[in-house]
């Protein structure tokens, strides 16, 4: 049921999973994203960094179908998805988490994650009402996958807790679990470590790497914490005021003078922090 583990990212084929070509998005007079092109290869962890308002989340929203680009195109596995609605994107196996956690507070951890499998469920309303037979069999199979994720993300003791009662870091983890429940081939993470303390960040970074290793999931990560980004990314793209100003391996990006100027602060003060 889970995507087949592929060979580790290092020798992954150079096949492009997602390509955005010259996409732009304006909100009234504000140019949120302007003529940005990125290409993400299958099996890699790609990060998008940039100062506040650089257009990172807007770009992610266009990829996941929440916004429609004003110009440019997006293809996923060669399929032009520029005009797709979010549900269609999700059906292609693209999952995301949100900057501001979007869980159902009154529902348990288990139910929230089960919900993530909804698009994978096939039994219709009628057979679900009857429940026994097909629907039950399907539910058991889905529950098995969900339990695998609970085990993977170490949420065993929280199964029956309503998510509203959980600490912030744990809610982020539940959100990741729900996104993973989709068995995504591409996972979009919008600041998964935002607002976390150091220990929680390290845990989350560990999970992101493990997801990538274990299931070969391709990951696009938006993150503020430079140390984490530089540590776990295969490639980094830097946005500033809606434009892409640099792209490359973490080491290349860290050396890029334009990046140091725009993002890390003049004089390269940020480098120590990023190293």
């Amino acid at each position, binding site marked *: 049921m889970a995507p087949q583990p592929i060979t*580790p990212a290092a020798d992954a084929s150079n096949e492009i999973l997602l390509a955005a070509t010259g996409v732009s998005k304006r909100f009234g007079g504000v140019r949120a994203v302007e003529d940005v092109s990125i290409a993400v290869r299958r099996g890699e962890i790609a990060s998008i960094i940039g100062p506040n308002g650089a257009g990172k989340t807007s770009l992610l929203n266009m990829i996941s179908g929440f916004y429609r680009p004003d110009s440019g195109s997006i293809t996923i596995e060669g399929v032009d998805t520029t005009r797709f609605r979010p549900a269609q994107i999700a059906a292609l196996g693209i999952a995301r988490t949100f900057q501001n956690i979007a869980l159902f507070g009154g529902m348990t951890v288990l139910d929230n994650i089960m919900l993530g499998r909804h698009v994978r469920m096939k039994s219709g309303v009628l057979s679900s009402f009857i429940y026994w037979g097909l629907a039950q069999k399907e539910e058991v199979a889905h529950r098995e996958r969900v*339990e*695998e994720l*609970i085990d993977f993300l170490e949420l*065993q*003791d929280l*199964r029956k807790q309503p998510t509203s009662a959980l600490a912030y870091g744990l809610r982020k983890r539940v959100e990741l679990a729900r996104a993973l429940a989709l068995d995504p081939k591409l996972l979009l993470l919008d600041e998964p470590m935002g607002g976390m303390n150091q220990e929680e960040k390290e845990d989350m970074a560990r999970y992101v790497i*493990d997801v990538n*290793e*274990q299931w070969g999931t391709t990951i696009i990560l938006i993150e503020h914490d430079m140390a984490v980004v530089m540590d776990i990314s295969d490639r980094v793209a830097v946005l500033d005021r809606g434009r892409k100003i640099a792209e490359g391996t973490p080491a290349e990006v860290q050396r890029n003078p334009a990046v140091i100027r725009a993002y890390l602060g003049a004089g390269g003060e940020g480098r120590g922090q990023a190293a």
Partner: protein
Amino acid sequence: MSGDITLPQLLRRNSESFPERPALREKDRGIWQTYSWRRYWEEVRDVAQGLAARGFGPGDKLSVIGENRPRLYFAQLAAMSLGGIAVPVYQDAIATELAFVLDHAETSVVVAEDQEQVDKILSLKDALPHLKLIVYDDPRGLLNYDEPILESFAALQAAGREFGAANPDFLTASIAAGDPHALALFSYTSGTTSRPKGVMLSHANLLSVAEGIAAAEGIRPNDEHLSYLPMAWIGNSVFSLALHNWVGMTCNFPEKPETVQRDLRELGPSLCLAPPRYWESTLTAITVRAADSTWFKRRLFGFFRDIAERVQLCATEGRPVPLGLRLMRAVGEVLVYAPLRDQLGLRRARLVYTGGAPLGPDTFRFFRAIGVNLKQVYGATELSGVCSAQPDGEVDPDTVGRVFPGIEVRIDDDGEVLVRSGGVFQGYYKQPEESRDAVTEDGWLKTGDAGFLDRRGHLVIVDRARDVGKMEDGTALAPQFLENKLKFSPYIGEAVVFGDARPFVAAIIAIDAATVGNWAERHNIAYTSFQDLSARAEVRQLIRDEIGKCNASVPAPIQIRRFLVLNKEFDADDDEITRTRKIRRRFVAEKYAAIIDAFYREATNVELSAEITYEDGRKTMLHSTLAIGDVDEATAVADAPRLARERVPAAAG
């Protein structure tokens, strides 16, 4: 008989006598998965053959590190099947402690639960010349490790099946050739005084204890046990390896440490062993939850708790229980006690033990009062864990019960308890001198505990023999006795009492962060951290009142006069307490010499700089000024417990 069989031989016999009965149960992905005795044997067989294929042989040592997981048990029995020795280590040990034990034991194979433990071992690799193989259970995060000495559990077992196909009779012969008196297990003592020592135990040692418990307590094959204590603790090895195989009962493993309480409730085990710390914190949790509930429930709980404790007191003192009280007890059973036992997962518990350290009499009385058959067991790692337990119907909080059949006990002239049994260990590994000192020439183990035998033949332990002191005026003082009394307060997490060769008794208190925090919230006291909370004057007053309560029940000379609320918890990483949560008194006295000095200088506060160790081994200094509190003399209660009068002089004699 226990003297003529090894643990692997027992496993084989069980797998042939009742192959389909459940041996182990593990909660995995939310569902209890059962391993039959046949499957248990097959798993052990594959691991053993895999180890043989990797060159593991007689006398080699295998360490397991992690939470209770079936595979770690397979590995231990597999090592024993090849004539090797299992060396379980504490999973929360910091790197330096771990390096010491693994190096000292000359471990050649480590079976680790997960990536965290593997990382820890890999970081020590260079300091461990004997280490040849690391096997991991959970592969998560380990896929891309490029370490030649690293192998997955599944791969080891696959290699074992291959080896088995090529050498079909090898393992059977190896197990049949097993010597019951050969070494089976090294249990590293937590060491309240010094470096851990490797206690060497044979198959016969472990099984003689299992035989003793099974006979004295009537353990049955259909008993269910939940293994959730540290695998390195001897008590766990005795129950989950020796007794498990001896009786053929079922061992269950919780999903993860955080789910123990829920798993306990789902299972309702019939057999339960836990250290005093567990019972103390459970009682604390009950008290807090009662205080947080509605007015009616709180009153109901308080009322019936009182009833239960009065009934229990009558029972321990041998007085008949008045009819009215008995009726109320019956009502309470329906309304409070049975639901409470159910919540605690003790609904079906037939035999419930506390051991490893003394349990405060009040905690003990509480659990008995609500109908939990809690009994004290006594033992030492050097005695293969356990040597005595209280028989049903003769339970009281002061004793550790009667020794098991076949075990002899006597008190030497200094009041030290000596024991002779089939469980007496084979010596400390690579420490011949200490080994000789531990046992008398005619085979009695010196337990290091001061105690006496009461009228019924029950053993009563007063304290560690060397800790029983004399105050300036000659009054004998057993610090642990007072500490246990203090710890009955839900607000006091740990206490260390001083008074040897001093004019009065003083105590260092570490508050229980959860309960005091909760108390502070209820009283609108704002605080930021443990340090801040512990320094609040209100908290000091709270602790003063709690000490007052304790003082009221002990004779005037040993009442606590001065105290200090410490700004941190006692922590095993700081060496203040052992991994089994016993206070390392001497170390604490040395570390906090400034405080003790201030107690007796009549100072009102003390400057303290303490070194604290983070989980990753980093250290930092903590400077602070702590206030010392005074306690007024409590009017000595006429009904000072029998304990205080009887025990202390006995120890002094």
